[in-house]
């Protein structure tokens, strides 16, 4: 497949507008402005684009819900709070092709009727702030942002809003709270952001990669786009691969490429010629898979059928030397730290899980600890305010399901392995 999303990423200085323009940036704007906003929404629906941030919600439907709400003040927010452990993909667009994102946002704003956009950027991407601010300034200077864009009467203002270190702000209602200058704690839904989001106005929140797909959908048409990759959820997908592979990095491939192809063909296999033990396919909150799942296609439906999720497409690979009790401990430690504390099942549940794992890590595991972990997961499952708690129990449940022997050995011997 020819690269689309990462096409300009490999071109030196493509984050400069003159270089980006030479390679097609902002080419889809006039086509989009030649369509009615409702037709732009329909084109995205025809493409059957699903969100690339983690939840996989149909983008066109999300837009339609917001576009239909009456009122002239609406917001478009770009979720650039890439915090899901293992996820690195958006960083490449933010650093090397910010104009692709800006173009996608101008078109998306036009489609939903929003004239104000924000990029919510995580603090941990300090290099991106300067690059984005410069790119936005250049886009204003060339008339791709601001008033009367391309002389077509379209207005769109854009600025960057930085976080300060909080994983939860990647959850869309927490992101809105943080944007408004509050603690980043999720809101109860409904109302959904499409009807009442930022400052209680209709709001669409899309991930960096999702928005970056929009110029291509407009450029080639939704029908042509829908022919790329998996039938049920097509398009190009940026897989970010890390861990025990020879060539970690980002790989743009058709949606539905198998784990085996990603790991062994594109990433050069497992480091040091070792065997694969486990793989997390879509970031820390997606269930762990094993060697027997290598032929699973990396798309939304296929991964659900295999007992996991596509999430953000962040593939974390573990070789045979890794003990899965340690893996679950590290993941649970992350979630316990990042739980926002708003709802009891998540706040207490993640803390209790962390306590039990800490005991296991010190070689003080007891008979019955596996059942205790499963019981705590049951008290969290389906009872949390937002998806963080649900994500936190996935590494526990899936590591016990596939690697129970690691737990039994740890409890029996009490030996701490690394």
């Amino acid at each position, binding site marked *: 497949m020819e690269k689309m999303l990462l096409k300009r990423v490999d071109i030196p200085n493509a984050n400069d507008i003159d270089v980006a323009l030479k390679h097609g940036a902002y080419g889809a704007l006039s086509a989009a402005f030649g369509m009615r906003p409702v037709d732009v929404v329909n084109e995205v629906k025809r493409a059957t684009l699903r969100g690339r941030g983690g939840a996989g919600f149909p983008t066109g439907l999300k837009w339609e819900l917001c576009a239909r709400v009456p009122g002239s003040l609406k917001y478009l927010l770009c979720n650039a709070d890439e*915090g899901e452990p293992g996820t690195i993909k958006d960083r490449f667009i933010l650093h090397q092709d910010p104009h692709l994102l800006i173009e996608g946002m101008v078109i998306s704003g036009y489609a939903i009727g929003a004239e104000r956009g924000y990029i919510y950027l995580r*603090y941990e991407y300090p290099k991106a702030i300067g690059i984005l601010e410069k790119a936005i300034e250049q886009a204003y200077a060339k008339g791709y942002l601001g008033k009367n864009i391309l002389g077509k009467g379209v207005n769109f203002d854009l600025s960057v809003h930085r*976080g300060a*270190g*909080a994983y939860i702000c990647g959850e869309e209602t927490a992101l809105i709270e943080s944007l408004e*200058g509050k603690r980043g704690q999720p809101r109860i839904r409904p109302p959904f952001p499409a009807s009442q989001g930022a*400052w209680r106005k209709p709001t669409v929140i899309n991930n960096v990669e999702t928005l970056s797909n929009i110029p291509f959908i407009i450029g080639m048409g939704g029908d042509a786009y829908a022919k790329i990759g998996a039938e049920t959820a097509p398009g190009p997908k940026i897989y970010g691969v890390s861990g*025990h592979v020879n060539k*970690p990095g980002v790989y743009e491939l058709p949606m539905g490429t198998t784990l085996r192809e990603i790991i062994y063909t594109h990433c050069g296999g497992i480091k040091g010629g070792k065997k694969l033990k486990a793989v997390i396919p879509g970031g820390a909150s997606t269930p762990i898979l094993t060697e027997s799942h290598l032929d699973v296609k990396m798309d939304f439906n296929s991964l659900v059928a295999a007992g996991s999720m596509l999430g953000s497409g962040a593939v974390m690979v573990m070789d045979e030397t890794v003990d899965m009790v340690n893996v679950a401990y590290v993941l649970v430690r992350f979630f316990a730290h990042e739980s926002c504390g708003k709802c009891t099942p998540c706040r207490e549940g993640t803390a209790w899980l962390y306590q039990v794992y800490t005991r296991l890590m010190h070689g003080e595991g007891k008979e019955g600890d596996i059942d205790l972990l499963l019981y705590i997961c049951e008290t969290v499952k389906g009872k949390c305010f937002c998806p963080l708690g649900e994500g936190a129990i996935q590494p526990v449940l899936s590591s016990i399901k596939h690697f129970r022997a690691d737990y039994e050995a740890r409890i029996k011997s009490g030996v701490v392995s690394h």
Partner: protein
Amino acid sequence: MLTEQEKQEISEELKHCERPEAAAIEALRVVQKKRGWVSDASLRDVAAQLSMTPAELDAVATFYSFIFRKPVGRHVIALCDSMVCWSLGHDDLYKLISTKLGIGYGETTGDNRFTLLPASCLGACDRAPAMMVDDELFGPVTPETIDEILSKYS
């Protein structure tokens, strides 16, 4: 007391915001940039400029990992301890840094040069193990490169 320059920078931030409190994080960062951390006195001054109560602003300040409500060293090392960095050597790297500097997580060196903190995923898993020193990202960090990195900061 905030300096005139700090007040001015916070006013600049306010121009980009729909409402004054939306500038909370950036305003705290303005203070932190010069002073390293946000004292109670600074917090009260910033709150007044943003038309917030000190309690409202403190609720924001204490929520985020990179707003410091306690003094830190001249440079802050944020060492990623999430999944991929852990699997590629975080524990050894932590021990090494900890031994070299004589501090553990949450501590500051006696000469006030470094504070060492654990960080959640820095989004640099392709360069693991990774760490940030102030606003700069390093990775993969190895026992061979750690001295060179630390020597950049005085």
